[in-house]
């Protein structure tokens, strides 16, 4: 058996796995066919006729965001950053989801806007809408393409399936159900996919926890990993940092993320999080399909409940994977695994005692397959293990003078599935994985067809078409969106760097967005010129900040420093957070300044339903307290606070 086969095993699907996959595909397409006859108007197709109950839109709201980036990426981050990965949920999502539900949905839903860009038109002017609509439409197509590419690449690696077949089959399935049933079909399938992901990952977490001896076992293994990374590999972090979320956030050198609390709270918790959850039409569209104002406001808050608990399903597998011996059936001789045990005993007897108490595998056992735990090493195109290099291409050595292996954290979930799932359950696990890819694709496709039809085609190409014409256009925009996504997937396959650059450009465009919406909704003096020039200057600020800074150890280029390097950040994440902070602040200030020197073009009457101070507060009369967004949101925030304290 060669080294490649040891570290990245190929999955063998049994008949029962195929049966499970077949049932899933039949139902996903079946939902599209069942809903086809209800799609009579463009409102039915693009907005589900505003007829969906809150619990369904709530689960779709969370599921549209549960793409591959979430399931694969958060498990990878769990293995890489430890418990601090929970910040992406408890700081980076929940507060924004509660905020959009309580404060912003009344404007989106009550203004009768059919999309987020259309809200910008009603509140500001045409050029602000155009800027947002065109950048958003391009972004959704590329995001969908990246999902297809990632799915094709992963299934090719794990199952040996042909990349082209994976891309085309997944595109065809998503196309069929979104073409036939529009947004309703996407929402219904997102609910199915939500339950599938939950039922696919619970057994994984259960078996992993049982294997390591529960939560205390996880913490002991993370403590050893932290010791190894700081004391042997020489990484800048406190040895205890992987088991805490806030304790080591005071300075960048103490935690594996390389960020400090202000950058984290402002950059992730405010700018990026509110910018995504409060302004991204992909998720807001689900809430806009709700059957009442109250249901629309409850949608993001209902979604926040599973979102709050999702770290247990998607981060925990990463925490588990880093401490499970990859070759458990091939135990090492005691002499072959004693070097690090003796070293830990000499340096930290308490830790050594804790490791023995929880039967934690030795470092030698964890690195026996070339990676660490179940995380395999990254392989280059020839199947050779990659080693870490600095910005000049020199290999990085650890404190003992050895090369440091680059780990492929993105394979955490597949490796866990391979280890713990027998035939049958493996089919369910793969279904969950595919569901996460496909819900991301369908979410992007339905957002694209709506923005294309309402905000681009109807606004600039054919203004006075009939409703049936726009329904027809929506269907063909779905086909166009899928075709463009396929092209984007192939672009990603052939020019990996191009996708990095595109994602960077979209990050620049998105970073200032929340400042525009915040001022638009809560300050009636904000003008169209202010909003447009605020957005443009915020985007430019993001470009300039990125071009003048660079994370340590990175080469200039996509990673930054393309003008000159004035400042080095400890990590890429820290640089991203501060780029967002600069972009948001610039947009905020410029929007205010330009608004103050330009004339208002909208009267108070025109801004009714679009601005907080001019809009009657939504009435909650007759709605029981436990269904009111404010009470629900308060409860969610209180539980989130408790979670933060528990894992401090």
């Amino acid at each position, binding site marked *: 058996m060669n080294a490649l086969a040891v570290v990245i095993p190929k999955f063998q699907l049994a008949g*029962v796995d195929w*049966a*499970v996959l077949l*049932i*899933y595909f039949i*139902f996903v397409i*079946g*939902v599209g066919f*069942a*809903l086809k006859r*209800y799609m009579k108007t463009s409102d039915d197709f693009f907005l589900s*006729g505003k*007829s969906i109950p809150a619990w*369904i839109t709530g689960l779709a709201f969370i599921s549209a965001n549960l793409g591959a980036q979430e399931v694969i990426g958060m498990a990878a981050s769990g293995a890489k950053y430890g418990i601090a990965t929970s910040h992406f949920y408890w700081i980076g999502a929940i507060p924004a989801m509660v905020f959009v539900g309580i404060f912003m949905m009344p404007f989106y839903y009550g203004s009768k806007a059919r999309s987020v860009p259309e809200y910008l038109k009603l509140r500001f002017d045409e050029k602000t809408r155009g800027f947002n609509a065109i950048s958003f439409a391009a972004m959704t197509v590329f995001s969908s393409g990246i999902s297809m590419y990632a799915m094709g690449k992963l299934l090719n690696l794990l199952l040996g399936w042909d990349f082209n077949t994976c891309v085309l089959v997944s595109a065809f399935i998503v196309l069929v159900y979104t073409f036939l049933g529009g947004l*309703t079909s996407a929402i*219904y399938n997102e*609910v*199915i996919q939500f*339950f599938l992901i939950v*039922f696919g990952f619970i*057994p994984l977490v259960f*078996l992993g926890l*049982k*294997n390591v001896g529960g939560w205390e076992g996880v913490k002991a293994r993370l403590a050893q990993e932290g010791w190894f990374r700081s004391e042997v590999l020489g990484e800048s972090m406190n040895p205890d940092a992987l088991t805490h979320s806030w304790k080591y956030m005071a300075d960048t050198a103490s935690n594996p993320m390389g960020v400090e609390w202000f950058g984290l709270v402002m950059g992730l918790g405010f700018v990026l999080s509110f910018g995504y959850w409060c302004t991204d039409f992909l998720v807001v569209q689900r809430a806009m399909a709700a059957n009442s104002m109250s249901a629309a406001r409850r949608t993001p808050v209902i979604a926040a409940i599973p979102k709050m608990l999702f770290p247990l399903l998607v981060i925990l597998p990463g925490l588990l994977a880093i401490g499970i011996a990859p070759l458990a059936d091939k135990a090492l001789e005691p002499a072959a695994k004693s070097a690090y045990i003796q070293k830990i005993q000499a340096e930290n007897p308490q830790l050594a005692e804790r490791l023995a108490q929880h039967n934690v595998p030795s470092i030698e056992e964890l690195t026996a397959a070339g990676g660490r735990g179940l995380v395999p090493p990254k392989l280059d195109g020839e199947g050779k293990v990659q080693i870490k290099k600095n910005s000049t291409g020199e290999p990085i050595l650890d404190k003992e003078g050895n090369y440091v292996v680059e780990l492929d954290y993105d394979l955490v979930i597949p490796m866990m599935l391979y*280890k*713990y*799932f*027998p*035939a*049958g*359950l493996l089919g*369910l696990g793969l*279904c969950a994985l595919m569901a996460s890819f496909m819900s991301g694709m369908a979410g992007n496709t339905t957002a694209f067809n709506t923005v294309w039809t309402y905000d681009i085609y109807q606004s600039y190409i054919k203004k006075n078409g009939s409703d049936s014409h726009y329904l027809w256009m929506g269907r063909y925009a779905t086909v166009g969106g899928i075709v463009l996504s396929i092209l984007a997937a192939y672009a990603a396959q052939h020019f990996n760097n191009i996708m990095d650059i595109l994602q960077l450009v979209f990050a620049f465009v998105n970073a200032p967005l929340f400042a525009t919406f915040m001022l638009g909704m809560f300050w009636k003096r904000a003008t169209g010129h202010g909003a447009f020039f605020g957005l443009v200057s915020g985007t430019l600020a993001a470009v300039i900040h990125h071009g003048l800074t660079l994370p340590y150890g990175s080469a200039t280029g996509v990673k930054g420093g393309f003008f000159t390097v004035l400042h080095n950040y400890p990590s890429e994440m820290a640089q991203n957070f501060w780029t967002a902070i600069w972009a948001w602040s610039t947009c905020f200030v410029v929007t205010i300044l330009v608004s103050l020197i330009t004339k208002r073009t909208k009267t108070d009457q025109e801004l009714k339903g679009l601005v907080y101070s001019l809009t009657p507060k939504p009435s909650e009369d007759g709605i029981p307290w436990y269904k009111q967004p404010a009470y629900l949101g308060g409860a969610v925030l209180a539980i989130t606070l408790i979670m933060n304290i528990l894992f401090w």
Partner: protein
Amino acid sequence: MNLDIRVPIGTMFSLIGLVLFVYGLLTSGSDIYAKHSLGINMNLYWGVIMVVFGGLMFIFGLKAQSKSKK
């Protein structure tokens, strides 16, 4: 719209659960469970849980559908 999402979810989960349960029965005692799932026949147990969950979803969905048939 007269299609409650709980009906297709319930049907799908019951079917998948049934497939897992039957496969778990057929492979009971096989070494695949020792190799993969810590010796526990997860197909059997998880199959039952999925059938129960799917059944409940299906019943609630049908009830809601007949109510809306208002």
